[in-house]
């Protein structure tokens, strides 16, 4: 029986439906203290003094730490610009200023209110526009001196600049018959994993720290905490409980460093779990983008040139912002053959909560703009939106911006599938209910899944069962099921015989993280490599046991190896493993590790500066169609039904792939229609689930059809590639294009709220 391609129920499903799955908040240690945070009330202020005496006198308080008490350095994935606690000054309202550990959570929180911090308020910069102004207050006085992992232009409040150019954009405009140029704006979106961020840290007798936390990579937790506290990596062990959703917010640091500092200071276990309000106010959000985009095409619909200029709000700290910006600028050409392409982005520090990784990594922002423009070009030229895209679609053998190879014809297949399944041809005959308008809208995108390093270890136990260890954290997407499926299929054993080791920096091979849609593709490849190594060793034993050559052997279903053509001549994995453990050769362990090493950019064809990812690739594709209805009285847009065709190479677990597509769609629906983090001056005004709305069962279409396109990726595990992020990326433009088709109004600012839609309709009652 093949394990790959099967709708296997989640292997962690049983513990989750029985309530036994343990997340970080569910862990308790003997004598455990509880941590709490004092947040900054100011967006920008110098810290003059601290008075912690009253807090320390509160019975039950074990420790109070300020920014002056925490030694260590600065951390950050691209720019090392952040301390665990504000040091010298605060840079956004909500920033952690002091932390307390106490016998219970209530006491810890009460103690934070007894801390007296004297601030000297500074003028704040609250938008990129303010940040780039002449003489603007500096968010980081030492900006240019901070360590950066790649070279870029920076200084003042400019945190990073990134630029791509290929072809000859300036000359190309003259050959275009139609050019559209517009400004677009997207909003800050909150991740809202239902599990708030948290950590539990315990110090052992040797002073070594064990860190459990809500995370997307135990290895990133380890690296960040070591940077932040100035500890060698060997002193920190990071492990993972179950993780209650992570959409980018749990990839880099949240409270692990603070919790570790309290544990070190007290010598006791400390647990710190954020409230929902804190989770909104002090972790990270999706970047708001302001973009100017210009796209030109010939009369026959061939796309000739595109130029994108983006101004991006970094927030107070670099976090993943340079990566997000660089990636989005690189994706902004879309999955089309556009020979002349240029994109430029500038990232500015502001006195706001940091912006960082969020599913799609900048791609949803640029895709909203670029796919809106393709719809406008199609309308101007009288070409069907699907036809326009198909004429320009990238195909196997083409390259991405910079020269990264495309191995798949999946994009054209996505277009055909979404077009057929949605019955696109009926779009002019749709019947709308009274006082409603209705239309189909579509949009497309591409994404990557090949990035950075990963490893896998497969061990054959004495009885012939297997332990798989990859260090990849399952954040809910299903890798704890998919990776064992890959392993079991490779070894031709039932998945029940594969145990999965929980990620542990002491025992697991490195895995950069559950991010960038990469686990199935990257970790899957490592699992196959490790399984192959085990198979080779098993065969070496079997050859000696059966007195034949290794090349005469075949792997048989159910954990056996036998001589080809001689059914009765075979040994079981157990026979082999017992021999290895007790007589000859030693225990059988297979390991593999790899790093994605295909260069992103060929410098002979593309001019680039400030590139944050020198090696990235492996493209997946997507086409979305939405049946959109607009209420003429209220302006409210509703998606009645949706189709999302995703090219995933091979679905290792089709049911899980469908779950990713539907879940990604709905997160994209929220981004498109109603989610927005709002500031009033320096403060976020809606840091609660009452005021920040995410989709409920009543907001989603009755049917979201996942359409799985399986165009195998040559080096993917069983042909598979990533699915995590791509389903969110083109939802907003598909809805916006549907609204435009239904009402003739174009909205270029997200979210597409009833107010904005209604106002636009009223302002343009006879548009087009």
């Amino acid at each position, binding site marked *: 029986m093949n394990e790959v391609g099967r709708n296997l129920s*989640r292997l962690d499903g049983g513990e989750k439906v029985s309530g036994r799955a343990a997340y970080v908040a569910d862990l308790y240690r003997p004598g455990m203290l509880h941590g709490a945070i004092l947040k900054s009330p100011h967006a920008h202020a110098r810290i003059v003094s601290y008075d912690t005496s009253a807090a320390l006198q509160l019975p039950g308080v074990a420790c109070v730490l300020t920014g002056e008490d925490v030694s260590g350095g600065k951390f950050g994935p691209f720019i090392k610009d952040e301390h665990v606690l504000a040091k010298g000054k605060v840079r956004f309202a909500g920033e952690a200023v002091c932390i307390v550990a106490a016998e219970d959570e209530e006491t810890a929180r009460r103690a934070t209110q007894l801390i007296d911090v004297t601030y000297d308020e500074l003028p704040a910069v609250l938008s990129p526009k303010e940040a780039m102004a002449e003489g603007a207050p500096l968010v980081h006085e030492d900006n240019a001196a901070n360590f950066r992992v790649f070279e870029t232009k920076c200084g003042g409040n400019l945190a990073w600049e990134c630029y791509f150019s290929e072809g000859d954009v300036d000359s190309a405009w003259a050959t275009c018959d139609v050019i559209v140029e517009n400004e677009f704006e997207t909003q800050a979106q909150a991740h809202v994993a239902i599990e708030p961020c948290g950590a539990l840290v315990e110090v052992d007798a040797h002073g070594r720290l064990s860190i459990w936390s809500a995370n997307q990579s135990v290895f990133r937790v380890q690296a960040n905490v070591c940077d932040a506290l100035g500890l060698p990596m060997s002193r920190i062990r990071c492990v993972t409980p179950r993780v209650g959703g992570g959409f980018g917010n749990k990839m880099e640091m949240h409270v692990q460093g603070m919790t570790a500092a309290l544990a070190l200071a007290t010598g006791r276990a400390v647990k710190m779990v954020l409230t929902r309000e804190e989770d909104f106010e002090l972790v990270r959000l999706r970047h708001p983008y302001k973009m100017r985009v210009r796209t030109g095409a010939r009369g026959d619909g061939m796309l000739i040139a595109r130029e994108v200029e983006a101004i991006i709000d970094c927030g107070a700290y670099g976090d993943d912002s340079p990566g997000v910006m660089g990636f989005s600028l690189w994706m902004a050409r879309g999955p089309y053959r556009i020979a002349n392409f240029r994109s430029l982005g500038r990232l500015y520090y502001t006195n706001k909560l940091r912006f960082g990784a969020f599913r799609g990594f900048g791609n949803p922002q640029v895709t909203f703009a670029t796919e809106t423009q393709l719809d406008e070009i199609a309308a101007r030229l009288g070409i069907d939106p699907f036809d326009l895209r198909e004429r320009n679609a990238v195909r196997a053998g083409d390259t991405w911006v910079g020269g990264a190879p495309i191995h798949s014809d999946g994009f054209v297949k996505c277009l055909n599938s979404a077009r057929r399944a949605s019955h696109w041809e009926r779009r002019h005959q749709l019947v709308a209910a009274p006082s409603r308008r209705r239309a189909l809208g579509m949009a497309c995108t591409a994404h990557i899944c090949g990035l950075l390093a990963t490893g896998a270890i497969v061990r054959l136990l004495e009885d012939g069962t297997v332990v798989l260890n990859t260090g990849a954290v399952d954040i809910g997407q299903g890798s704890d099921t998919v990776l064992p499926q890959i392993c079991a299929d490779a070894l031709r054993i039932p998945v029940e015989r594969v145990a999965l080791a929980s990620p542990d920096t002491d025992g697991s091979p490195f895995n950069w993280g559950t991010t960038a849609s990469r686990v199935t593709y990257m970790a899957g490849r490592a699992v196959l490599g490790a399984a192959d190594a085990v198979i080779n060793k098993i065969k070496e034993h079997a050859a000696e046991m059966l007195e034949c050559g290794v090349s005469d052997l075949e792997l048989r279903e159910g954990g056996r190896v036998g001589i080809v053509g001689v059914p009765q001549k075979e040994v079981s994995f157990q026979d082999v493993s017992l021999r290895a453990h007790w007589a000859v050769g030693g225990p059988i362990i297979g390991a593999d590790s790899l790093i994605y090493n295909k260069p992103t950019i060929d410098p002979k064809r593309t001019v680039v500066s400030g590139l944050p990812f020198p090696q990235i690739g492996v493209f997946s594709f997507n086409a979305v169609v939405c049946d959109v209805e607009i209420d003429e009285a209220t302006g409210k847009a509703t998606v009645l039904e949706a189709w999302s065709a995703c090219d995933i190479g091979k679905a290792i677990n089709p049911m899980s792939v469908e779950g990713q597509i539907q879940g990604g769609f709905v997160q994209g629906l929220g981004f498109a229609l109603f989610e927005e983090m709002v500031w009033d001056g320096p403060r976020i005004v809606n840091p609660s689930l009452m005021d920040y709305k995410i989709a409920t069962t009543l907001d989603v279409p009755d*049917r979201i059809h996942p359409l799985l396109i399986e165009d195998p990726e040559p080096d993917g595990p069983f042909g598979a590639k990533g699915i995590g992020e791509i389903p969110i990326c083109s939802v907003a433009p598909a809805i916006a294009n549907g609204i435009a088709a239904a009402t003739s109004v174009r909205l270029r600012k997200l979210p597409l709220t009833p107010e904005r839609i209604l106002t636009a309709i009223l302002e343009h009652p006879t548009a087009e």
Partner: protein
Amino acid sequence: MNGEQIVTLAVNGRQRSVRTTPMTTLLTVLRDQLFLTGAKRGCNQGVCGACTILVDDQPVRGCLSLAINLVGRAITTVEGLTQQGEFKPIQQAFQEGGAVQCGFCTSGVLISTWALLRQNPRPSADQVRLALSGNLCRCSGYIKIIEAVCRAGERSRHE
């Protein structure tokens, strides 16, 4: 602690003595004293539904319910759905139907579903949507959850 007293609560069919103050919530008692951590704290203000608990036959928010008011009531948590290691059809339907991703909302969704199916063993999809509209999920897009509830309704009808 001020006003602390010991009360007895009927949790999953067992009498359990717990320490409460007039302000102690059911969620805190269940999680921090009885270590029944299936109910989750997602927002602590009654919006997300991850702490949904059955009191008699009504789904309530554990984070908004004061423990001291629940003496003499039958409290059922997600842990109480599994009896002698046997999953209820609804638990099976969730597991087999891809309705569980990260699992953090699952306990609350299951309790809301359980309450719905006791009142209405074969709900329509719209009735399911209404009954689960107070349970937030950020992973699934709800589609497979709604399908699983409808399927469990079908299944229990045939049993």
